[in-house]
């Protein structure tokens, strides 16, 4: 029961998430996928604050006891935490940048896996099923809202119009995993009110506390990455809504402009390290080239 010794280390976090990213960006795509190079989603995905958004998003998602119980009881994250993150990373990248067929294929796979994820949350005593649209929607909304908030605080802030566009674009990602379209928020206002509506159900269960404690201070990171991770962790926690921080019992000083700049600098360094992984530069260039072409519709070259 005590999970301490079951934990795998986080060694290879950078290498494996980089490989996951590279694998998700097609080389010669048949179509632009569900978002495309002119989308806000692609723009968001190239921000250096991505790791913070990812971590913050996991922290928010984990506060739903049933979503957390599903992960806790069915996922092998303790044994292979990095592999688990890399799998999510591949999934998100493929849905964002992959061809439609590829995005549908990985989503179909996720839906199939979810069929078997059922059980009872020990703390609330409530039964859950991973295919329950309510849980899927929570996970989706936490991701979208985290990207927006972290972008605003530590990354490239979006205009209100682009924020709405981003939320609307992302609806399809929720549909792909099986949430009925009409349930999915399609504007920032809808997103916020949806999240507010779920709040009474949220709580920090033992499983959430344990898994987040691991993520915030993963053992086995290379020493230099561990140093960088301190800032990623700070930024993720600082970007949480007040109520979420209270549930976890975390207390961090709010980001002053100086602190924000320092976090961005550290994220720049992390980004440079990431860039050193095989294929990452090429994958980014594939994306950037397509975005360039999309933003300048008159072809610059015949």
């Amino acid at each position: 029961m005590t999970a301490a010794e079951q934990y795998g280390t986080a060694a290879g976090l950078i290498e494996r998430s980089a490989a996951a990213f590279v694998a998700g960006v097609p080389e010669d795509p048949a179509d632009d996928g569900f978002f495309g190079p002119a989308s806000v989603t692609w723009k968001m995905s190239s921000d250096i604050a991505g790791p913070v958004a990812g971590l913050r998003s996991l922290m928010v998602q984990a506060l739903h006891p049933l979503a957390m119980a599903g992960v806790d009881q069915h996922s092998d994250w303790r044994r292979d935490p990095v592999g688990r993150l890399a799998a999510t990373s591949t999934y998100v990248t493929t849905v964002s940048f992959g061809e439609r067929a590829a995005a549908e294929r990985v989503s179909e796979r996720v839906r199939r896996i979810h069929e078997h994820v059922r059980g009872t949350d020990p703390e609330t005593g409530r039964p859950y099923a991973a295919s329950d649209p309510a849980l899927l929607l929570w996970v989706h909304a936490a991701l979208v809202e985290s990207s927006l908030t972290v972008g605003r605080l530590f990354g490239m802030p979006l205009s209100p119009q682009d924020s709405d566009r981003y939320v609307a674009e992302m609806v399809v990602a929720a549909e792909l995993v099986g949430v009925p379209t009409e349930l999915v928020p399609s504007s920032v206002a809808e997103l916020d009110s949806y999240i507010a509506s779920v709040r009474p159900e949220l709580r920090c269960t033992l499983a959430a506390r344990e898994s987040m404690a691991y993520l915030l201070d993963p053992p086995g990171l290379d020493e230099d990455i561990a140093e960088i991770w301190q800032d990623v962790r700070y930024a993720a926690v600082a970007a949480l809504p007040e109520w979420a921080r209270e549930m976890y019992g975390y207390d961090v000083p709010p980001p002053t402009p100086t602190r924000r700049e320092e976090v961005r600098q550290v994220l720049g360094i992390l980004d440079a390290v990431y860039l050193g992984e095989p294929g990452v530069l090429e994958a980014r260039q594939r994306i950037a080239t397509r975005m360039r072409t999309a933003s300048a519709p008159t072809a610059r070259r015949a």
Partner: protein
Amino acid sequence: MKPHRGKIVAAALIGVAGVVGAVVLRRQIGRLTAPAAGRHAVAPAARLRLRRGLAAIQLVARGGARYATNAPRLFALAGEHRQRLRNDLALQTAEDVTTTLGTMKGVLMKLGQMASYVDDGLSPAVRRTLSRLQDSVPPMSPDLAAQVVREELGRPPEEAFARWDPEPIAAASIGQVHRAITLDGRAVAVKVQYPGIAETITADLGNVALLRRMLRITAPSQDVDALLAELRERIVEELDYRREADNQRLFASYFDGHPTITVPKIIDELSTRRVVTSELSDGTRFGEFTEWAQDERDLAAETIFRFVFRSLYELRAFNGDPHPGNYLFHGAGKVTFLDFGLVKHFTDTELQPLMQMARYLCVDHDPEAFRKNLEKAGFLRPDAPLSTDEVIEHMAVFYDTVRESRPMTMTGDYSSAVVRRFFDVRSPVTTYAQIPRSYVILQRINLGMFGLLGELTATANWRAIAEEIWPFVLGPASTPMGESEAGWLARRPAVRSWEF
């Protein structure tokens, strides 16, 4: 008890001091040339050290060399596909520049460039990272480059020059080089700086707390701040091309008429803070030159050696950017020296002890006087409880090539070996070593110049050449090149002499 980085760096730098007055070559050439695997196998000490570093500094330390080699590469050489890709991704606005090189990336590139001569790390991963970082910076679009020229020279390039090639011919670390023909018909190279890059890098360098963490030096804070201040100052200087132009003028004027050394002249009226224009030089690049016959390589090495030590002792200046891209070779020992972006000027007070060290160790054979000067320069704590024999034992390696007058061959991994020697944390001397701020840059001699000479596997009687240049010897010409140099020296105005 782990050794900390500050001391290790200090130790490495101590070695440099020796090199300044002397040419270095391990006596046991076999050990240097022996196993190619040696480079990786040496590691225990190095690995320990690198473990302790943070990504950023590992990155700069270990990636630097590779980056430096690649930096000036012609875009076209990278293959047509890449050329097209780079054009597709060209930086079109100052904002693009900030996105690409902001949030420390420009600083990392600069630090990497510097560290490549201060440290010699081994991790292929980090080497790749830095090289990739460099690759990730596309050139400016023709319009953006033209905009910078317009802002700096007051006219668009088509008016400022008789002919302007909108396609850059080379990448500079924070800019790019265009070919042009001046209105009065001279072929020139125009280096154009990325707009906004100076501001971006200066702002990022302002975060001392972060730099401290990155370098993660646990040495007494005074040392860290001095080291940081030196790094920052050098980098900020490089951001102002006027500085570079001044330095290049200084070197060009000093070496004017030299039989084998050429420094392209600066075109004053076309040089500003972000644009520097100099005569266009043509010649063989280092990579290709290493395929030339050995006698040609020996001569070129002799020229480089003379250039470095004449600059140091007579101009009291050292070009701290001796990477392979900064040389063009013409045969018969003739070499053109490019890029004076990172020149360190020394005061006589700073140079004196270095000179005396060489003198007492190699010429006068007075170990105690040698040690006294080592301490005077600040390389060794005066109270170090070490015997002078121990100190000499530790330092002598740096003077091996000039302690005896006989031909010696520089070998491939020589400079790494010298640096490696001083990463030897088991040495008792390391504990008492310090880094005097002014000498930080001199480590570049180890990893820059000697690295190059090693790649050329150059043979010469380095001691005899050093004697020609050493102000405390001023020996007779020892080679044909020395003789023609003597003629040049006789014709040129005397430089400020040294007092002993």
